[in-house]
């Protein structure tokens, strides 16, 4: 029984791990911290997996657990000072032409989002991932109206950082 659950979890999570990587990239600034947070997210997902009923998509459920871990549970390690060398490979856009505009935009976007506070980061992340307001408000635990108000402000902040 436990074994089946484990196999299902591993396959579900392995397929969706990119979501966790994106969150780690936004909330941490070094490779070590990235892996630390990823590990904590994995622990939390596995711990709560028996309660995952499957009435929502695994990815939807994962957004919530992973963001909660990044915002509320993860302690930033103080011993690490090295900042992440944003690997150019990580931002290579699958594109047919040689235009590197999107690549530069993506890099700038990550850098800008990292300057936002934890809550604004979550809002912008969910916006970029195309999540509906209903899901955003349920994930964060605020009303839809408040989610909209907060989202508009976060977007304004982000625009100001991107185009000062």
């Amino acid at each position, binding site marked *: 029984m436990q074994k089946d659950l484990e196999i299902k979890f*591993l396959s579900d999570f392995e397929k969706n791990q990119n979501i966790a990587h994106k969150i780690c990239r936004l909330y941490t600034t070094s490779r070590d911290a990235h892996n630390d947070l990823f590990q904590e997210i994995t622990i*939390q997902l596995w711990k*709560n997996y028996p309660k995952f009923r499957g009435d929502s998509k695994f990815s939807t459920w994962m957004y919530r657990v992973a963001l909660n871990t990044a915002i509320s549970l993860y302690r930033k390690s103080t011993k690490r000072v090295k900042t992440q060398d944003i690997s150019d490979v*990580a931002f290579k856009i699958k594109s047919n032409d040689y235009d590197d505009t999107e690549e530069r935009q993506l890099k700038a976007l990550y850098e800008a989002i990292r300057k936002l506070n934890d*809550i604004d980061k979550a809002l912008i992340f969910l916006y970029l991932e*195309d999540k509906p307001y209903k899901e955003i408000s349920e*994930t964060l*635990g605020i009303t839809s109206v408040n989610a909209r108000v907060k989202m508009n402000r976060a977007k304004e902040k982000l625009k100001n950082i991107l185009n000062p």
Partner: protein
Amino acid sequence: MDVLDNYKKAWENQPEEVSKFSSIEIYKMAHSKSSSIVKWIFIIGILEFVVLNSLYFFIDMDEAIKEYEKLGLENFIFYSQIAAYVILFYFLWMFYQNYKKISTIDSTKTLMKKIIKTRKTVRNYVLFNLGYMALVMLVFTIATINVNFDEYNAKQILLITVATLIATLLILGILWLFYQLLYGILLRKLKRNYKELAKLDNLN
């Protein structure tokens, strides 16, 4: 078209993480030990209960009881100790219940609220202990003055009172500072984030 729409397109086209983890790595990670804030709050909370209560082991109780009897305080100490233990178990129970209710499946705001509540239980216990300590010191001082009233002059009484007061405040102050530091480090980020979400509700 919104400025952000361009960036959003870049986001959608971003490549997958290059250093992905294999199933085996994920398996190992899932079974490793959590080092989350919640776990630390639990450990530190339990330590606080243990430390505050093990202080009694360092006091020579026979000596202390003789001293209390001399001052006529044995009843006060006896009943207040019983009350203190009932209260201790109440706090321990509450602490465990709060801890158990913490779940990452909750919404971010509910989760943060529950973490803060768990911490508050221990804070209240510490406050109760500090209060109890202050009360014992106070009763002890009054009793000492009362018993030896004829031997002391007004100046001596004033001196004893002031000295005890300063000593009490100093001990309480140090304990309080230490406590604030302990949780301050752990919960600064969480509290800031909670305020960020909670202040919205006040706007509407």
